Structure formats: C-alpha cells, structure tokens
C-alpha cells in the first residue's frame, strides 16, 4: 500500500462511532482533526460512507451564533469554524449553515489595538512590537489575534468569496493579510504571531510559516513570495517535526514546489499528522487548501 492509501486506510480505521475523529485514537471527536480527516478523505470512493458520517457530525456542531464548537463537550465557538467553511467550499455546499458560518467568521476579530494602546505606542516603545492597526483572528473570542487562526480564516474567506455577498469580506481578507505580514519574523517566516518582544527578535517556526503561506496565497501584498517560500524550504530541510513537515509540504506544493513528503511508511498515531500527511501527498488533496 502506498503512503497515501496507507493514511486514508488508517483514517477510516480511526473514525469514532459518532462519525468524527479525535486527535488520538479513542479520544473524543474534535472539530479540527475531523476537518483535516474529511479534507484528506474527500473524493476517495472507498471513504464515501466515512466521509458522510463525519460531515453530518460536524454540521450538527454549529452554534446559534453561526460558529462551530471544537467538540461535542465544548460549548464555545471556535477558530476552527474557518476549517468548516473551507470544507463547505470543497464540498460545494453553500447553504444557510455555510452563510452563518461565514458571517460568524467575519464578525470574529482580535481584541488588541485599543485606542489607549495605540496612543501609548506613539510615545513609547512597546514591549511587544507590532502595528496595532491590523487585526486578524483569535483562537477564542475576546482574545488577541494570532497567525494560525488568521491564516485559516483568510484562506476560508478567499475560497468563500464568490459565494457570499458581504462587502466586509474583501476588507477582512486584506486586513488579515496585513496583520500576518506585519507580524512576520525577521528571518522571513512566521511564529505564532510575535516578531519582536522586549527588544529581542523572535525566530519563526516551521509549522506556522507553512500555514501563514497558505493564508497568503494569491496575496498582492506579499511583495517577496520567493523569500517567504525560501524560508519555508529552509524549515522543510531542517525540521524533524512530522507535523511541521506535513504542513510545509502542503504549503510548498501549493506554491508550485515539488517536494517529497519524506514521511515514514507507517502512519502516525496522531490523527492530525496522519490526515495532513495524506493531504501532503502529490495526489492527496493539498489543492483543497488553495484559494480557488
């Protein structure tokens, strides 16, 4: 069995009775690994039933406010609503649930950058240095914005663009791109979302560099895509993290780089890594994470 099929087979075997996937075998189903598993299994004929059960489960997790909760037991709307929007676009389902999810996403915003904070920034060097005008997406409501949820949200909104009539969409996409570009590390990549703290430059991480690049696909604001891709390629050569390697391979493929996955033959016990490694295969579905 090839690397791709081995991962799809493992994903089918790891599906919970409720139709979802946990982060690890036997764990509670969660939105994030379920979305990645569904993206990986999408279009695979033997996985059709598994796919529909997972799809039905996450659709039942939409909250009143339009956001999706991270799991059946967790009663908050989550950043991973962005992944559900992406999944709807891949599946071509643009119904009421989709519209409500997009509306929730458009209403979600980091809380940093109050007027007092900005005024202080005019007269003193702030301990955390970034442009407080640009806000992205938070992990949770009422918290600051960070690179990973912002990148997934920007990508989801780019995919949803043709299916939603909301003038705020383009504006939020642009704002999210500006936020990511402003918080880019001096080495050319991205970490979780701070480039300089206490007068010290912070290094980028491989996995967040990959995810940021996915969010910035097609951006006219990214003036040096080659340098950003080079930073990702450097991480790809150096990292020993399977998770990071899978994300980087997906991202570099979407930027036209034919890099090998480099995955071990045996799928990992970590369901998310298994799903991302499947997506990272040449025919594995990484294209679902392109804007269009």
């Amino acid at each position: 069995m090839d690397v791709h099929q081995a991962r799809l087979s493992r994903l089918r075997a790891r599906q919970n009775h409720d139709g979802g996937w946990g982060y690890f075998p036997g764990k509670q189903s969660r939105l994030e690994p379920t979305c990645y598993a569904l993206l990986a299994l999408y279009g695979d004929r033997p996985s059709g039933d598994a796919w529909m059960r997972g799809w039905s489960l996450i659709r039942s997790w939409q909250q009143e406010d339009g956001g999706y909760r991270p799991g059946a037991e967790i009663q908050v709307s989550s950043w991973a609503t962005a992944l559900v929007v992406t999944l709807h676009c891949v599946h071509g389902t643009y119904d009421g649930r989709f519209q409500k999810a997009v509306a929730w996403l458009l209403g979600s915003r980091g809380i940093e950058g109050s007027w007092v904070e900005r005024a202080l920034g005019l007269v003193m060097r702030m301990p955390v240095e970034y442009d407080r005008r640009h806000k992205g997406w938070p992990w949770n409501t009422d918290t600051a914005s960070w690179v990973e949820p912002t990148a997934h949200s920007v990508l989801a909104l780019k995919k949803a663009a043709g299916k939603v009539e909301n003038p705020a969409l383009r504006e939020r996409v642009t704002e999210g791109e500006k936020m990511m570009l402003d918080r880019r590390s001096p080495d050319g990549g991205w970490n979780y979302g701070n480039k300089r703290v206490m007068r010290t430059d912070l290094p980028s991480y491989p996995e967040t560099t990959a995810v940021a690049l996915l969010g910035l696909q097609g951006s006219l604001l990214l003036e040096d895509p080659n340098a950003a891709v080079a930073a990702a390629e450097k991480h790809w050569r150096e990292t020993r993290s399977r998770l990071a390697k899978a994300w980087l391979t997906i991202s570099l493929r979407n930027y036209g780089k034919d890099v090998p996955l480099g995955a071990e033959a045996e799928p990992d016990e970590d369901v998310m890594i298994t799903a991302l490694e499947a997506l990272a295969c040449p025919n594995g579905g990484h294209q679902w994470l392109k804007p269009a």
Partner: protein
Amino acid sequence: MAETRIGRRGISRRAFWPAAGAAVTAGCAQAPEVPAGPAGKSAVFVAKAASYEADLESIVRRGITACGLAVKGKNILLKPNLVEFDPATCVNTNVAVLAAARAAFLALGAASVRMGEGPGHRRDTIYLAEEAGYRKLLEGFDRAFVDLNRDDVTFRENVSHRGGLYLPNTALGADLIVSVAKMKTHHWAGATLSMKNFFGVTPGAVYGWPKNELHRIGIPQAILALNKTFPRSFGIVDGIVGMEGNGPIQGSPKRSGVLAMGTNLPALDATCCRIMGIDPLKLEYLRLAREIGHVDEDRIEQRGESVAAVRQPYRLIEEIERVRLG
C-alpha cells in the same frame, strides 16, 4: 507572547504597565494587601546537585520524605516544563530530573506515574519531547505520556471571564500532580517556577497556541486560579541549570546546582525566588498566592540546605529589575 488586557476591551496589560511608572510591571505589582496565608508553616526542601549526573533519584526521595508527602497507592501525573527546544540554552525541565522524579515516586509506592504537558507555543508536542531527550531517555515514554493540549476535557469553574476553563481529564483525574518545573526568570511574571508551570495543563486545542485566554484573565490571576483548581500538588524545581536574563525562552543558562521541592507551591516558589535573588513579595502572583500558601520567610520551614548556602542571584532584564531582593 500574548498580551494581557485590562478591562473588557481595554489596553493590554503589557502595554499599560510600562507606562504606569516604576512601581509596577506586568507581573510584578504593588497589589493591595492579601491574607498572610493559611495557619501554620510549610516545609520546603532544598538540596545541592552539582550536575545532572548526580544521584538525583536519591535527592528527590529525600525531598519527598522531608516534606512529608504521602505517595503510596497514588496515581501521579508528572508535569514537566516543556516549552520550546533550543540546543543553545535550557528552556525545558532536564530529562534527568524528570527521570529521577519518576523513579522516586515509583520506588515510594505510587500506583502509577504518568507524564503530561501542553506546550504553549509549538503544536508538535511529541517532536519537542524528542528534541528534549524525553522519548529517548525515559523508558516507555510514548505509553506514559499525554499531550495535555489535545487530551479529552471537562469544564471546571474557576476564575475566568467565561466562568471557568476546560481542563484535561488526565490532569483532573490524577491523585497528585507534580509540577516538575525549571528555575527561570520570566519577562512578564518575574519568575516562572512550580506554580506558573500549571499554564501547561490548559488545553491548546481549546485555547490556542499561545493560550491567550490565560493572559486575558491576567497572568498572576490565572496562575492562582489553576493552582486552586489542582490543590493536590507537589513541586520539584530544576535549578541545577536554570535560566537568567530574558526568560522564559531566550535567557541564558545559569548554573545554580540546586533542586528544590515542596508540597506547598507558593512556599516552594518563594524559596526559589530567594535563591535567585528575587523578592517573592514583589511578584504579583506570589502576593495573590498567599491566599493558598505561605510566601513570607517566617512561615516557611527550610529543610536540607539553607537558602543562603545555595543563593545564586540571577541576572534580570531591566523590565523586571525592580523585583530584585534587597
């Protein structure tokens, strides 16, 4: 690093405090007086350990005994400080200390000893454990370790603007959580020791990377809330090689040659601060922690070495220089 907010949509704590003058910093405030702590005193055990090659298991066993901790039959969760990996410095709890703690608790009759951590910045916990040498040097690591960021969770009421936090079932189900922390300066809180180490039990899969919810609550307040939620705890602080300067990630190694332990985590952290040349009463989280423990020197029974015998003043960056002892 995340920012803490003052007020519902107000200024970030990190932005506000520098402007407020010399009296306060993000985690080092002149807060209103709080109770002096529960009645009685707390024991803290301090031992010299010249290097990670020393007989650390014996030292940990002596510390457990000296602090009067009952271990027999308990299901124990060891919670190291595993944050990021940088071969040039010493961000994480050294594997030798973790191995010694595991062996000591098993030798003293613990029913089980598991390990768990939820790093605050990096998502691939197992990769971090690999880089830190945990997987290679701790036998059966994969079976004994739980990624707390992605564990099953249950909601627990405690302090938070949302009324509580979702917390990992592995931590909630343990009879005893042992915070196996690193002795480090912290550029927001002043120092990160056994109590701040509890940040790692909050699940990233719910609160993100970083766990900005905790900064939103307030770093000192969140430290207290988490420690109140997990009252059955013990602390071991790895100060054999600590971190000074711009901790908790980008500081420099500091050879202190010390291991400290205690059942009352505020007392343990206060003692570690004194070893580091930090005034514990100038750290807001420890002032708040007097609600649940002992911070004042006359309420702590020092066992093993005296603080004076192991004191090694740590270098502090200018933002937290004001917490210097004396």
